[in-house]
């Protein structure tokens, strides 16, 4: 197990170097000079432009800028946003819990509904439930998130008034820390009604963000189950007279789960992408919106620092998924 971990960690190195290069190059390849964009119609004089270039370090050769960036990373310094003038890492840490909270809720919802739905569809292959479920999944998968999110708001907040429109917490509650996770902090704060408010604010964005992974997980579970259900050992188990629930729920599902876990792990990347739209629509103060704003402002430091941190998160999640395989399937651990 240890050597497996060590080998996996080693692959971090080239990925990490690649990510720094891409993050650094990507924002600079986009046309648009951050100083001119900052000045807008008002313009900036030639001398002032030169001064600002020096101040932001854009007058340095490009390789020097890259080396400074990498050297900074090793000292734990991801630079300072030239818009907010605050350290990139501080901004990330302030916003990241919101994205994690929303992402975790979405993944849990998608898994809790997606796996049973996939199993039931596989067991009832070709019947009405299977067809209805798979067409629903297809619709869910193809829906544009922003449209779906807005529709949810109009129906559940606008017409029915069941949930708040947007935000993370009712404005009457003052909650700041300690964990950054609203569900936990609201309980710790002891303010009555705060937890309920946090849950109410989470429902719609969770549903919106979970929709695509849910569809993917349901379809993946179904096809993996179908494959396993045709295996000899399942037939044997049935022939032994084992109850269908035990056959399907334990023996078949456990083996079908391996590809499903892969899909769940991979969907972390998809979730972060979906979070950009979901966070914008629901005014959810996470990192998705932050990255988009920074790209538009050509805030180099934030984009290259933020992308790196996000990539790091995805890499760590993938590692965890790999470790999880080991537990589900000993063949991988030992192989």
């Amino acid at each position, binding site marked *: 197990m240890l050597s497996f971990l060590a080998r996996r960690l080693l692959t971090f190195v080239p990925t990490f170097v690649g990510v720094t290069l891409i993050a650094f190059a990507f924002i600079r390849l986009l*046309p*648009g*000079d951050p100083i*001119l*964009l*900052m*000045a*807008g*119609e*008002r*313009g*900036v*004089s030639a001398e*002032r432009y030169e001064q*600002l270039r020096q*101040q*932001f370090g854009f007058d340095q050769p490009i390789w020097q800028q890259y080396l400074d960036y990498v050297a900074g990373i090793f000292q734990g310094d991801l630079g*300072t946003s*030239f*818009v*907010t*003038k*605050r350290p990139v890492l501080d*901004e990330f840490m*302030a*916003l990241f819990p919101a994205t994690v909270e929303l992402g975790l809720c979405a993944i849990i919802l998608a898994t809790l509904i997606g796996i049973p739905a996939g199993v039931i569809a596989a067991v009832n292959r070709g019947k009405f439930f299977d067809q209805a479920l798979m067409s629903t999944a297809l619709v869910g998968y193809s829906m544009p998130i922003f449209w779906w999110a*807005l529709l949810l*708001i*109009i129906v559940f*907040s*606008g017409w029915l*008034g069941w949930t*708040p*429109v*947007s*935000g*993370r*917490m*009712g*404005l*009457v509650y*003052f909650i*700041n820390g300690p964990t950054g996770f609203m569900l936990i902090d609201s309980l710790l704060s002891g303010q009555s009604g705060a937890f309920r408010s946090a849950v109410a604010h989470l429902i719609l964005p969770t549903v919106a963000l979970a929709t695509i992974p849910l569809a993917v997980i349901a379809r993946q579970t179904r096809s993996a189950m179908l494959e396993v259900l045709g295996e000899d050992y399942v037939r044997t188990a049935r022939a032994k007279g084992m109850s269908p629930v035990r056959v399907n729920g334990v023996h078949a599902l456990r083996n079908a789960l391996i590809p499903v876990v892969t899909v769940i792990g991979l969907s972390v990347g998809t979730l972060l992408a979906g979070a950009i739209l979901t966070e*914008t*629509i*629901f*005014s959810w*103060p*996470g990192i998705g*919106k*932050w990255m988009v*704003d920074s790209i538009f402002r050509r805030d180099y430091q934030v984009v290259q620092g933020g992308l790196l941190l996000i990539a790091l998160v995805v890499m760590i999640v993938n590692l965890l998924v790999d470790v999880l395989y080991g537990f589900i399937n000993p063949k991988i651990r030992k192989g």
Partner: protein
Amino acid sequence: MKKIIALSLGAMLMGSAASAANLVYCSEGSPEGFDPALYTSGTTFDASARNVMNSLVEFKHGETETEPGLAESWEVSEDGLEYTFKLRQGVKFHTTDFFTPTRDLNADDVIFSFERQGSADSPYHAMTQGASYEYYNSMSMPDLIKSIEKIDDYTVKFVLNRPEAPMIANLAMPFASIGSKEYADQLIEAGTPELFNQQPIGTGPFKFVGYQKDAVIRFARNDDYWQEPAAIENLIFAITPDASVRFQKLKAGECHVMPYPNPADLEAMKSDPNINVVSREGLNVGYLAYNTKVAPFDKPEVRKALNQAIDKQAIVDGIFQGAGAPAKNPIPPTMWSYNDATVDDAYDPEAAKAALEAAGVTDLSMKIWAMPVQRPYNPNARRMAEMMQADLEKVGVKAEIVSYEWGEYLERSKAEDRDGAVLLGWTGDNGDPDNFLAVLLGCDAVGDANRAQWCNEEFDGIIKQAKEESDQAERTKLYEQAQIIFKEQAPWLTIAHSVVNEPISTKVQGYKIDPFGGHVFYGVSLTE
């Protein structure tokens, strides 16, 4: 009694964010910071200068004219070079969790507020890492201000390098907000100078309580305000980037005021019994600037003929969808000295064709530059250029549409030998006509912000004279005259002024649209 009121207000606060004492503003974005001197965006000013701070001179609520603020009065010397301000006494800076002032506002605070921007040697210049003072620089303050002197604790003298009448209006701008020197000293001593840009202290009607990044900004009423305290107890900015979601929040009663509605939602908003839509022309102008240095656009008759060929009303109807009004002058109607007596070049393709022939222009082909971004003064430049192209086609002029990335576009359009007419616009900074007429059309701005490359001696003489004249009635006459010359010479096709629409809850009383595009909550109250 006071305690009982405070308690019951507290109870209301806990009950609902939408109670009478709490106004929720669904703001469109996050402030970049809270030090208005560092930034140029309205979103940042709303959260700092406009509600938390004051300046020596203030704009009248909802007007472009100025009135005394932290300066009770001022005198201008004969030669227009010395401005002596008498400060108001007994003005208190905010007392908050993070700062307790020990003294009232005085001359040191005024000098501190300008020196930290103007002098790189000031110990306060780099309180914020990477600080740059763009508005101070772009308003040419470094060239303009020779010195700022403290005469006594409540008298400050600004000495200028040249007479400049718009100086007073400049001092009412957000970058000129007066901060507390005592607060800055305390932060530096504590080793946390960066907090100056994160936890603002001012003298304004609201004091800063807290900011949860990208989510909520909270302000509380300043009960020690030097004018009558605000009617609102708590002012809350709920940051809501999506316009449709802002509308849903307004409908659901989760906020009281929202900026920047989708034009498509305006009808639904107007028919909602709980929503008032207030409207006003914005302090901006969208225009098409010909290059008056390139033939045949160097002839006023050709420019006027092209102006006649373009159906402005159709453009305003089609592109602004209720959020724009046709423009005839280079300055907006909300600005003082707007000359309503000028006559616009009426849409008349036949007359345009004849005029072009008379000028000896046949088979004309030209370029139209279309901006790649959306602006209030031009929500869709590409579509606008296409409509112009179709109109010009009808009078036998071939137009080709070009565009560049925004930074490039701004830079390249400055070139004196530029090929083509440029779509662009301007939003006013200080409410002074000089800020439009000299910045955009003066001879000094050729090759820079004067995209028409237009230098007319008569016009330029008048605006230069107006800049040095400190009597506002005289200045008004001069600017009215300048607008007549502009109209005769037609360096631009003036297209539109945006119309700002702001849906507000019917509970909101006394809200006025700020001509500078800001959102000011002093003087606003809520009914139950």
